Structure formats: structure tokens, C-alpha cells
């Protein structure tokens, strides 16, 4: 591990720039154990009065942080006063909110334009063919005004595997934060080919969302791997990927996790029990809503297909009717216009509602994983406490270990709690927006159809009036 001082510097610098919109947790300075840092305000703004460290905006300090692979938002306390052993790959980001609920000052998902300093777009999917495989890369353009970035604009190409890697790193670094979900590897039903245009487009949009959600997350946005992902050239990224704990150690962690997660569940604090209940129910409901929404889309598509055939029959009919030609042709025209309106409604659904609902399906899976990881961290503590209680092993070092683990658990819990509130807020906004959009699409659809048929009716009435006035002697 690198110099702690540098890390602390980096953390402080990060603090001065931390955006706490929607995130009420980052009052690192406000807790009792902190030292050397100014107390943060309670209004969610980054402390303007925090003493700028010399060279704080220099990239050199940050380079050290990068090497450390630390999360800049880490509690300085942990950096200065605690053992460096805490800075392992399972490091977490502790956030000590004074009062979480009072920190909810922002309900918009997107940051205010004037506060956002990292803009990412994902576009231009391209197919690459090698002798071994074919795959798609996506162009990622990053525009930023942040000092820690070498330049203000970056353009890289990444493939799905790279996104998977990034997600994995984020989960490792922040086991109890709610990491945004990635679109699925494959979609089981409905897709025959991986490279179907619709599939690629849906994935592209989801990947775009993924990166932007990370960028808007107060903690994750400063993650080093994230930065590398956005900026490194292909070869740089692959060499960077090779660093870090090997496959075996990660596997070991998984085994431990499975073994101990059950224990963690038993001693789960009340609020996390509630959270878990919510997650379970939410997961059920959002999955159902996902299915329902997909089904509606399918039914609308089939309705549209049938409607396409319906109008032309009236035209065909008009060919054999002299007196009804105009009426029949007009009816055909109305049906065709309603057909187009249906098409528009469908595309609105697939753009506004379906991706959002599906993202939250993936989020619900993610949440369950977060719960498990929290439980696992707790289980580690519990097993040590148990060992101490029953004096199973050599208990000299135990109290110290237990102390560290207690801190770890507390940090993990607080991180989750804070992120949970933020996530819930976002979820409510997103769901509300998505369904409001859906309602809007439907209203618009019916309004269009109404106008079509009403004008038909008017023209028929006018014709009738003309005819009857002609008949009059």
C-alpha cells in the first residue's frame, strides 16, 4: 500500500469536491473519530470552509491514490488511525450521516447541470471479428472538468466484458453500496441472435445508463477503476485488469461468503430486516411488473399487425361499391392513422417504461447481493465474537480483531443505509416518471385516434347535409 498521507490528501481533496446531492452520508468530518479535517455542514454541500491542502488540485496526489486503489471518500479516520490492514481489496466506504432523512435535499436523479462535471455517452456499436470470436464494442466519450483527469475529453472503445470487469471491481471495493446494474449477458426469450439490432440498441442504452448512474453516485464516481475504464487505452486497460487479487483469492471469498452469510442473517439488525423484507417484496413486484409490461408490448405489437391489414380491406371493398367509395376510403384512412398512432405508442412504451422497469428488476437482484455481502461482513464479526465467548482458539489477538471488525460492520451498515435512502428516492422518481410517461403516451394515442374519427364523422355529416339540401326541390 502506498503512503497514507497521500491517501489522506486525496481524500480531503475529494471531500472538497464531493457532491452530496441526494446523498446524505458524506459527513466524514462530522463524526467523533475524525481528526484533522474541518467539520462539514449539515446542508449537504461540501464544506467550503475545508482547508485546501497544498497542491490539492494537483494530480500527483491523486496518482498516489490511484496506486493505492482507494476510494477517495474513505473516512480519514480509517486512513490515519486504523491499521492499514483495513485497506484491503474488501475496503468499504464508511459514511456517517448525522441524520440520514434530513439529508434528503435532492430528489432529481440527474445532477443539476451546473454541478455535474462528468458527462459520459455510450454510442456507435461496432462489430469486431477475430479468428476466435465476434464481439461488439461501444464508443465511450467522456467530457469532464475534473482536475484528476489528465484531459477534458476522452474517447475509448469498450466491450461488454470490460463493463463486467468494472462492475466486479466496484462491487469488490464497495460491497455494501448499491452498484447500478448491468444489462444481462443474454436475453433468454425473444432473441435468437446476439447481434440483433434491437438487442444491441437496448444494450447500448442500458450501458449508457449504467455509466451515468455511476457518474452520479457520490461515492462511486471517484472510484479509480471507473476512471481507468473511462480513460485508458485498450492495452492500458488489459494490463490494469491483470492486477489485483487473483482468481483463487476471489473464489475463496465467495466460499467464505456462502458459508457465513447464514450466520449474518441471524443477527441482522431490525432496520436491515425491514430492508430485506422490502427488497424481497419489491423484487417480486417489480418482476411481475416487468412481465406485465413486456406482455403489454407484445399484445400491442400483435394488435398493430392485425390493424395493418384491417384498413386496406375497406379500400378493396370500395372498388365494388359505387355509392360508398368515399365513405369506405375515409374509414380506411382513419384506421391507418390509428395504426400509426399505435405504433408510436408502442415505441414510447419501449423507450420510456420497459427499460426502466427492467433496470429495476436487475437492481432488485443487485440489492439482494448487497444484503448478502452485508450479512457476510457481519458474520465475520459474529464468528470471531463466538470464538472469543467460547474460547475456542487462541484469544489473545481476538479483542483487537473484533474491534476492527466491529468498525468494519458499522461502516458497512452505514454505507448501505445511506445509499439505500438515496436508491429509494431515485427508484420512486424513476418509477413515477416512467409510469407517468406511459400514461402520457396512452393519452396522446387516444387523443389522436379521437381526432381522426371525429373529423371523419364531421365530413360525413357535412356530406349528408349537402346531399339532403341537394335533394330538396
Amino acid at each position, binding site marked *: 500500500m502506498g503512503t497514507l498521507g497521500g491517501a489522506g490528501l486525496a481524500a480531503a481533496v475529494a471531500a472538497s469536491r464531493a457532491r452530496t446531492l441526494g446523498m446524505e452520508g458524506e459527513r466524514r468530518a462530522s463524526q467523533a473519530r475524525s481528526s484533522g479535517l474541518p467539520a462539514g455542514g449539515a446542508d449537504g454541500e461540501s464544506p467550503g470552509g475545508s482547508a485546501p491542502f497544498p497542491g490539492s488540485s494537483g494530480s500527483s496526489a491523486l496518482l498516489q491514490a490511484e496506486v493505492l486503489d482507494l476510494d477517495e471518500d474513505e473516512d480519514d479516520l480509517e486512513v490515519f488511525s486504523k491499521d492499514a490492514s483495513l485497506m484491503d481489496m474488501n475496503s468499504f466506504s464508511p459514511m456517517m450521516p448525522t441524520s440520514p432523512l434530513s439529508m434528503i435535499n435532492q430528489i432529481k436523479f440527474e445532477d443539476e447541470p451546473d454541478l455535474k462535471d462528468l458527462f459520459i455517452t455510450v454510442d456507435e456499436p461496432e462489430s469486431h471479428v477475430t479468428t476466435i470470436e465476434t464481439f461488439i464494442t461501444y464508443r465511450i466519450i467522456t467530457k469532464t472538468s475534473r482536475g484528476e483527469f489528465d484531459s477534458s475529453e476522452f474517447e475509448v472503445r469498450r466491450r461488454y466484458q470490460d463493463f463486467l470487469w468494472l462492475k466486479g471491481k466496484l462491487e469488490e471495493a464497495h460491497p455494501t453500496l448499491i452498484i447500478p446494474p448491468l444489462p444481462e449477458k443474454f436475453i433468454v426469450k425473444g432473441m435468437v441472435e446476439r447481434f440483433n439490432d434491437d438487442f444491441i440498441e437496448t444494450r447500448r442504452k442500458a450501458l449508457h445508463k449504467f455509466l451515468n448512474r455511476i457518474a452520479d453516485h457520490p461515492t462511486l464516481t471517484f472510484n479509480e477503476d471507473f476512471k481507468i475504464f473511462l480513460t485508458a487505452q485498450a492495452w492500458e486497460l488489459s494490463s490494469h485488469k491483470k492486477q489485483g487479487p487473483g482468481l483463487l483469492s476471489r473464489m475463496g471469498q465467495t466460499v467464505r461468503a456462502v458459508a457465513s452469510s447464514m450466520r449474518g442473517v441471524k443477527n441482522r439488525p431490525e432496520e436491515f430486516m425491514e430492508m430485506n423484507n422490502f427488497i424481497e417484496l419489491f423484487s417480486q413486484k417489480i418482476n411481475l411488473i416487468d412481465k406485465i409490461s413486456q406482455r403489454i408490448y407484445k399484445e400491442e405489437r400483435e394488435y398493430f399487425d392485425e390493424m395493418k391489414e384491417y384498413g386496406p380491406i375497406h379500400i378493396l371493398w370500395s372498388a365494388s361499391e359505387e355509392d360508398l367509395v368515399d365513405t369506405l376510403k375515409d374509414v380506411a384512412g382513419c384506421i391507418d392513422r390509428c395504426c400509426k398512432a399505435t405504433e408510436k405508442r408502442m415505441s414510447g412504451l419501449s423507450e420510456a417504461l420497459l427499460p426502466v422497469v427492467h433496470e429495476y428488476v436487475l437492481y432488485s437482484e443487485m440489492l439482494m447481493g448487497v444484503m448478502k455481502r452485508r450479512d457476510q461482513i457481519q458474520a465475520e464479526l459474529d464468528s470471531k465474537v463466538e470464538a472469543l465467548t467460547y474460547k475456542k482458539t487462541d484469544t489473545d489477538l481476538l479483542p483487537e480483531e473484533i474491534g476492527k471488525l466491529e468498525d468494519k460492520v458499522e461502516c458497512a451498515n452505514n454505507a448501505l443505509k445511506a445509499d439505500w435512502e438515496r436508491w429509494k428516492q431515485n427508484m420512486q422518481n424513476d418509477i*413515477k416518471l416512467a409510469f*407517468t410517461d406511459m400514461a402520457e403516451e396512452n393519452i396522446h394515442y387516444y387523443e389522436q385516434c379521437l381526432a381522426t374519427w371525429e373529423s371523419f364523422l364531421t365530413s360525413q355529416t357535412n356530406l349528408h347535409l349537402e346531399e339532403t339540401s341537394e335533394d330538396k326541390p
Partner: protein
Amino acid sequence: MEQTPPDPERQLQPAPLEPLGCPDAGLGAAVGKEAAGAGEEDSGVDTMTHNNFWLKKIEISVSEAEKRTGRNAMNMQETYTAYLIETRSVEHTDGQSVLTDSLWRRYSEFELLRNYLLVYYPHIVVPPLPEKRAEFVWHKLSADNMDPDFVERRRIGLENFLLRIASHPILCRDKIFYLFLTQEGNWKETVNETGFQLKADSRLKALNATFRVKNPDKRFTDLKHYSDELQSVISHLLRVRARVADRLYGVYKVHGNYGRVFSEWSAIEKEMGDGLQSAGHHMDVYASSIDDILEDEEHYADQLKEYLFYAEALRAVCRKHELMQYDLEMAAQDLASKKQQCEELATGTVRTFSLKGMTTKLFGQETPEQREARIKVLEEQINEGEQQLKSKNLEGREFVKNAWADIERFKEQKNRDLKEALISYAVMQISMCKKGIQVWTNAKECFSKM
């Protein structure tokens, strides 16, 4: 064999029976005028004084349907539906109606009535019956004849059938029709006693005529093509409409699932809960609104179906014409050959091969007396033939004239009715859209309050 203008016996006698006025149904508003002019139908039969009869109007309704069990001709138990037919006479002055007759009939009796009318009025486009079995169904509707919705729609169809006949200038005066409305018992026997089944043209004969007729009236040929096209296009339209209805049903009903899930979800949400719950309620409303919408559309489909079946009635008139024309052509041909035979016998030349000629060669010439006898017979036959040809010609022309008059009447009715149906379809769509706008506006409000 061929049908002369309607049998005087079947026409209504002025007394003691109440003359059958033509009801003031929405159909055939110009009936009064036509009815008066239809007096020419019973040419030579002065059983009516015309205009006075149309002062009394009647209302016919098929007001109820009832499931019944009974024994059929083979003494086996069967279930069938009976329909109550009520006839009211309306006083012209005050518009009050008085129930004059009410009886129950089943579908097969309606069929009998129609078959009778087809035989006795071949020059009329006889209104069709509603379908015997449900066709063009979409999944929600059952194809079961006992299904209440089907029975209801059939009831309406049967009422429509009777009203069409009652508003037809010629058909409305038929006695059997009158008895159908008034004589419950023995009506079937009465119909059968007319012997109409015997008078019916055989299908085979008609088919033969259709193939072999040489000079049918072009208008009828065109009419036949038109009726084929009409049948084909309406069938197609009804099929696609049924599929569209099916899909639309699916779209609406799936939204109902939102209602349930939102309600369950609202239980775990604090801030969003109320919005979700009430939005869910609107989704339920939306989902259930499709039932009424599609029921209305079914009536529209029935209106189209009537004209689908009318196509067959049109073809029946064309077939009749072809049959008569063929008959005429055959008679003319027969006459021509007889004349030729006669000529040959008279002049002694044998230009054509004949059996007589063969036998003459084989067995010897016939005597002059024999030949004279034969010529005489032939001349008689020729005379008869010429008379028959004349009357057939006359019949044929009468038929064409009368048929064409009714076809013109039919065309106008069809144009009016179909236009009205299409407009009513638009009205239905408008109503559906308005409902949709309302539900989704309410839902949107709930969502935005979440």
C-alpha cells in the same frame, strides 16, 4: 312449374282479417309510396283497396328468448331456444300501441318461413336470417348456440328479419307471413299445405341452367359478380375484425394485472403507496372497459353479416333468372327443331339425321296418311310451343322487370344501411377513445402524485 304472379289465394282478403300495414320501422322509410305502387304486383287481382290500408301501422318485436326442452320428430329429447314475437298495432292518431298478438317460435320455424318466401317470391331479394351457428368468433365469444350473448344477438337478428319483411312493399302482404305472426298452432301445417316444397326448383336444375344458359341478361351476370365480391370482401373484413378484437381484448386485459400488482406493492411503500393504489384502480377500470366496447362492436359486425348473407339472396334471384332464361332458350330450341322436323316431313327432304329416317330406310317408307298424321301432331305441338314460348317470354320479361325493381330498392337500402353502419362504427371508436383518455388522465394524475 314457373311462378306466375302471386297466387290470389295467398293474398290477404280485406275481411275479416286485419290488413297488414307496413310498420313504421326505421327500415324502408319510403315504403308507403312503394307499397301503394306495388298494387301492380297483383295485376288482375282486385283484392285490395290500396292507400287506406297503410294508415294502420304495426310494431313487431322479438322480445324474449327462452330455453326449452321438448321432443322432436323422432321423439327424442332436445333443447332449443324459443323466441317470443309480439305484434302491436299502433293507432295513427295518438301513437298508442295495443298488443294484438304474441306467440313463441323457434329458429327452424323462421327458416321455414324464409324458405317459403324464397319459393313464392323468387324475384324478391328475400331478407336473410341471422346465422344459425356463430361464425367469425373471436376467442372470448363462444361458438355455443346456447350461450346467452349469442342468443341475445340472434334475438335481435330475428327481429330485424321480421321487420325487413314487414317493411317490404310486397312481402309484407303475404298471408303466411301474417299467420306466422298470429297463428301459433298449426302454422307449420298450413305452410306445408301450400306445397311450396314441391314448387321449389331443384338445385341440380338450377346448377345446370347456370352452366348452360347462353344469353342471360347482362345486368344479372354483373349482379352475380357483385354479390360474389361482396361476400368475399365482407367475409374477409369480418375475419380480420375478429382478430383485431381479439388483440385489443388482450391489450386491455393485461393492463388489469397492473391493478393487482400495484395494490400489493403499495403495501410496502410509504410515500408512493397511495398513488400506486389509486393508479391500480384505474388500470382495473381500463381493463374492464373493453367488454362493453367489444359488445357494441359485435352489433356492428352483425350489421355487416346481414349483408354478407344478403349476397346469397341476390344470387338466388340471379339463379332464378338464369333458370327462366335457360328454360326459355330450351323451349325456343325445341320449337325450332320441331318446326324444322315439320318442314322436312312436308317437303320430303331429309336434311338432318333422324331416327325416323333410319327406320324408314330399314323398314320402308311410311304411308302418306302416316306422314300427314305426324305433320298434324307436329303442327299442334308447334302451336302449343309457340304459345308457351310467348308466355315464357312474357314471364321472363316480367320477372326481369320486377326483380330489377326490387334490386334497385335493395341497393338503396344497402347503401343507406352500410353507410349508417360505418358511421356507427366511427361513433363507437370515438366513445372508446374518450373512455381511454379519461382513464389514462386519471391514472396519470395518480402517478404524478406518487
